[in-house]
């Protein structure tokens, strides 16, 4: 009725299939029962069309299912009422003008099933039935739109609530000194999961209300340290992050092999990475310099055979991010990377 183009005749191209949006994904997640209108007014087959019209007027609806006992036998829509009026047959029973065998969808079907009917058949509403084919309600395009909006709203609220709770964590718990400790075990050679700990730490900081700039700096610093554990250590290592309201302390430690010359390791462009590792895009010799640039304090302790301890501090109460901090070695990086290749 509403859609003027017969969508069913349109050829669906690969391009269209590829253009699936988040909203369309929701059509597969949401169930009919979550969006439908319950407590639908039902008509009986022997009710006169005059009473049907009166009921539509009072209830401000434009269609309703016809139920005989428990069995659904049809649906009366505006179109049926117009046919009845044109025939001047207003006192006829609903069973004479109703559309028989109406399209039904089951309670637990995904909303996309209902959408398919709306696209392919020219109907304004579908009857929702239980597993035993008993009337449960109706579903219209409007119901689906409202259901979408509610679901999107809910997803937003969930993330906001998470952020709110995390932000108030430090205020809600009283102690002389409260801190939150996060630990991550990093496995040597595990390139697939490399970067997982740093993204989790960045997300945690954002939820705790840190500025995006600070979260970005922390993310970069931890990422470089995390990849160092993956690339260079014998047995992997541990990242321990302690978050307090005013600052975060990060410790990264491993049990070997240790750094031969700490000063050299801090020089931009110096790298001991193998050719294989460089092929993956690591080993630019920018790891430790990158960390240094992103944090407010850095202590590196290491000697061959003793493993490496890296201690970092980032202020959270004042944003010390400066242009310098974000891109001091940009020029250097370009020169040095030319050297490493």
């Amino acid at each position: 009725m509403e859609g003027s183009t017969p969508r069913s005749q349109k050829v669906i191209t690969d391009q269209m299939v590829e253009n699936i949006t988040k909203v369309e994904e929701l059509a597969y997640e949401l169930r009919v029962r979550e969006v439908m209108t319950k407590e639908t007014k039902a008509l009986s087959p022997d009710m006169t069309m005059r009473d049907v019209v009166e009921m539509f007027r009072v209830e401000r609806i434009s269609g309703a299912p016809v139920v005989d006992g428990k069995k659904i036998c049809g649906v009366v829509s505006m179109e049926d009422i117009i046919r009845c009026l044109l025939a001047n047959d207003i006192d006829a029973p609903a069973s004479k003008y109703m559309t028989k065998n109406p399209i039904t969808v089951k309670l637990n079907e995904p909303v996309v099933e209902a959408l398919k009917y709306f696209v392919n058949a020219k109907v304004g509403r579908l009857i929702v039935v239980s597993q035993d084919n008993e009337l449960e309600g109706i579903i219209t395009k409007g119901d689906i739109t409202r259901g979408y909006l509610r679901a999107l709203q809910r997803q937003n609220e969930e993330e906001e609530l998470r952020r709110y709770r995390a932000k108030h964590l430090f205020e809600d718990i009283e102690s002389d000194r409260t801190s939150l400790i996060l630990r991550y075990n990093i496995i040597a050679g595990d390139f697939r999961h490399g970067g997982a700990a740093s993204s989790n730490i960045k997300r945690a900081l954002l939820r705790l209300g840190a500025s995006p700039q600070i979260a970005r700096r922390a993310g970069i610093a931890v990422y470089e340290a995390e990849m160092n554990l993956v690339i260079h250590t014998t047995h992997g290592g541990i990242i321990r992050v302690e978050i307090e309201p005013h600052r975060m302390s990060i410790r990264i430690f491993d049990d070997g092999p240790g750094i031969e010359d700490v000063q050299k390791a801090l020089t931009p462009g110096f790298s001991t990475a193998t050719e294989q590792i460089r092929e993956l895009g690591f080993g630019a010799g920018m790891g430790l310099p990158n960390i240094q640039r992103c944090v407010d304090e850095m202590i590196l302790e290491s000697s061959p055979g003793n493993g490496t301890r890296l201690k970092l501090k980032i202020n959270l109460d004042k944003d010390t991010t400066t242009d310098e901090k974000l891109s001091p070695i940009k020029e250097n990086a370009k020169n040095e990377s030319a050297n490493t290749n």
Partner: protein
Amino acid sequence: MNLQTLIDELHLKVLTTPKDFSSIQPSSGYTSDLLSCVMTGAEAKGVWVTLQAHMNIVAVAALLDISAIIITEGAQPDEETIAKANEEEITLLWTDQPSYPVVGKLWEMGLK
């Protein structure tokens, strides 16, 4: 310039779940295959051109809030990498062109 015009002009293949690319306006571009250099040089909301196609490019892009990665030289990321990119909402674009002409075209289109 938005991401959609960029995809059309460079005939890029979209590897991740498509979204409304016309609403995404990349503000800068960066190219390097060395991840630490990217960490240093790439800006948030920018486009990154690289021939690397392994899982770690997604981690780097997510940490830097990069809008899209253009993978060049026909390098093929695996399913897991694409899934991870979807999860992190990073767009992966693909071309069999080398990085140089891709960057040249981006520059020509005004991404400077």
